[in-house]
Structure formats: C-alpha cells, structure tokens
C-alpha cells in the first residue's frame, strides 16, 4: 500500500519536471527553470533528478552541477522541516542582524546554510527581504519576526529544536 502511494507521488514529481522541460521545448536554456521545478518537487536538487534533467536537455553533467552550485537558491541537500531565514540586508545589519544570526546558530547548533542533523531546521540567510523598516528581521517559516532580539529568536528556535529531542 505504502509503496504504491510513494511511487505515484514520485511519478507526479517526474511529470512536473518533464512538463517544465516540455514547456521550453527541451531547450538547453531551460536548465535553470527546470532546476526550479526539481527543487519545488523534491525540496532540493536530487542527484537522480539532475542526471535525468541533464539527459533530457542534453546538457553535460558537469554543466548541470556547475549551474546548480552557482546559484544560492538551489539546495544540494534535503532541507529541514522548518526553515528560518535571517535577513542580513544593510538596514538589518546596522540594527544588529548579525547578532540575531549568532543567537540562532548557537541555540540550534547549526551554521547558516546548514540543516540540523535531525532535519528539523534549516537556517538560511537572505541578502535583503525588503522589510527594512522592521529591522532586524527574521522569518520563521515565512512568519515575520520584526525588530527581532537575540533572546526572542533563540527561544523561538529552541521550541522547534527542543520539540525534537523531547
């Protein structure tokens, strides 16, 4: 039972990826658009999917890897259940954004750009989320924490991470 639902779910992912490639006539320049779809379908750039895309778009494997690792938006590893994005735009930075980041790194024992080993939390940094008047800003699963203090964010992240260990 379970296996079959998994397979059909998988099928849907491949169909999505294929649809994107078809929409662009399987042209090589569709690579970035297709990688966006792969990431939406899998949550990250799955290696098998990369091989599939390379073959279908007739792009060398190394070029696919080169593009996938050039752009920040693409993740090469599975992401956590929750994500926290700390804004490091100019306004956030001068209002203490980096201290917010440090507090989260310490509380969750994870570095920016990484995911906790239990896959509960991915910590990301953004160049600017465009909410400068709320600085410093952190996003917890898209919920905005404005004028964030290190204590607040540490507590918030602690809830997610503690949840797991208990």
């Amino acid at each position, binding site marked *: 039972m379970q296996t079959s639902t998994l397979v059909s779910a998988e099928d849907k992912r491949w169909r999505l990826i294929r649809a994107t490639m078809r929409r662009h006539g399987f042209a090589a320049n569709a690579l970035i658009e297709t990688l966006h779809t792969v990431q939406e379908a899998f949550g990250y750039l799955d290696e098998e999917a990369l*091989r599939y895309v390379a073959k279908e778009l007739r792009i*060398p*494997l*190394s*070029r696919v890897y080169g593009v996938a*690792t*050039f752009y920040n938006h693409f993740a090469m590893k599975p992401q956590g259940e929750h994500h926290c994005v700390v804004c490091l735009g100019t306004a956030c930075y001068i209002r203490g954004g980096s201290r917010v980041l440090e507090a989260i790194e310490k509380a969750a024992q994870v570095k920016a750009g990484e995911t906790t080993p239990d896959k509960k939390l991915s910590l990301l940094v953004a160049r600017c989320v465009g909410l400068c008047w709320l600085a410093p800003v952190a996003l917890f699963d898209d919920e905005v924490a404005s004028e964030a203090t290190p204590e607040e964010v540490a507590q918030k992240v602690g809830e997610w991470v503690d949840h797991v260990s208990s």
Partner: protein
Amino acid sequence: MSVVVTLKINDIDVSGQEDETILDVAREHDIYIPTMCHLDGLSSVGACRLCLVEVKGMNRLVTACTVKVAEGMEVYTETERLKKYRRMLVEMLFSEGNHICSVCVVNGRCELQSMAGRVGVQHITLPYYNPLRTLDTTHERFVIDRNRCILCTRCVRVCDEIEGAHTWDLGGRGIESHVVTDLNTFWGDSPTCTGCSKCVHVCPTGALFEKGRSVTEMTKHREFLPYLTMMREKK
C-alpha cells in the same frame, strides 16, 4: 579579405588585421604581454587579467586577449601601473591556493612559477589562504590536485571545445569555486571522460598531471592544440 590596420604598441608602429586581438598583434611583433588563462587554440575568457593593457582614450584597462585592434589605437603594455597590478594578481594566485613549488611535478616547468619570476614576485605579501582542497587520484592514468589549480578553465575549455566531452566544469562560486568532473563525482568513475589527456597537457600548473610522475618530472605537450583547432575548423 580582412582589412589591415595600423596602430602603436608602446610607441612602436605596428600593423595587424582588424579581426586580430591586441595580443595577436603584439606577439607577431615580439612584444611580450603576460597571459595565464589564454591559450592559442581555445576561446578567450579574459579571466586572469594579466594581459590587461592601457589603451589611450579608453577609461578602463582592457584585456589584450579579447579586444580587437583598431586603426590608430595606441596601446601601452608595460606601464608602472600595469606592472604593479600584475604583481598583485600573481600574488593573489599564490595566496589563494596551496602552491608548494619545491615538491611539485611541474617544478621548473610551471607557468605560474615562471610568471612570478617574470613579473618580479619574490615573495607574497598577502596572507596565505591555506584552503583545504581535494585531490582525486581515481583516474587510472591522471591525477587532479586542486591545491594547485588557479581556475584558468583551460581544462574546461579544451574538453568542451576541442574534445567535445565537457567532462570538466566549474562548481561553486567566488573563492569557493573549483573544477569538477561530471556531477562532482570521481574522475575515475566518469562516464564522459575519454581519457584523451588534453586537459592534463593544457593545464598551466601541476594541478593536472600523469600518474607516476615525481617532482619536476611532468612535461606538458601542447603542440597538438593549434593543429587540432586548425584541422577542425577545416571541416
């Protein structure tokens, strides 16, 4: 068919075809311009910036390997400013990787090593980066030691443009950039590498070399490249 233009390089009157680059014309007239990423027979990318020259009337320095000559151009290749920049650029390359000349397979035949001598770099004022980089010895005949890679992308270009395999490319970006084979998998497992060795021979440093070569033992042969380019253009 192409038009002949006259120009000055370092106040010397020279002439060239209008589809030639400043570098082409300079070399035809035995005027030395340092290059690192450029290699005859491959496309030019203007990445290493060592061939930057001053052109009168242009507010920016230009790469001699990519800019075409034009009638009345006045080019300067050895100004004090350029010399200073070249020294700094070479220093940057040394500081970025782990270049230990004394134990390198191409010691004495390395383009980076001789470039240091040529532009007058006798020590590196910049702090060393000491990056932790990988070495891949899985290929049966060749080795890539990324510690010695200067990211000139000659291997990437020769593999793509001449061999047609495109096994190599760049991964990551910025200071984290590195050359990869396929999906950053082991070279020895590569389904695309033909083992042609072109990448090994165009590599300016000891980053790519033949297995079994010891210190100073690796000689690189590039005579094939202009020949291959010519033969393929004919087709």
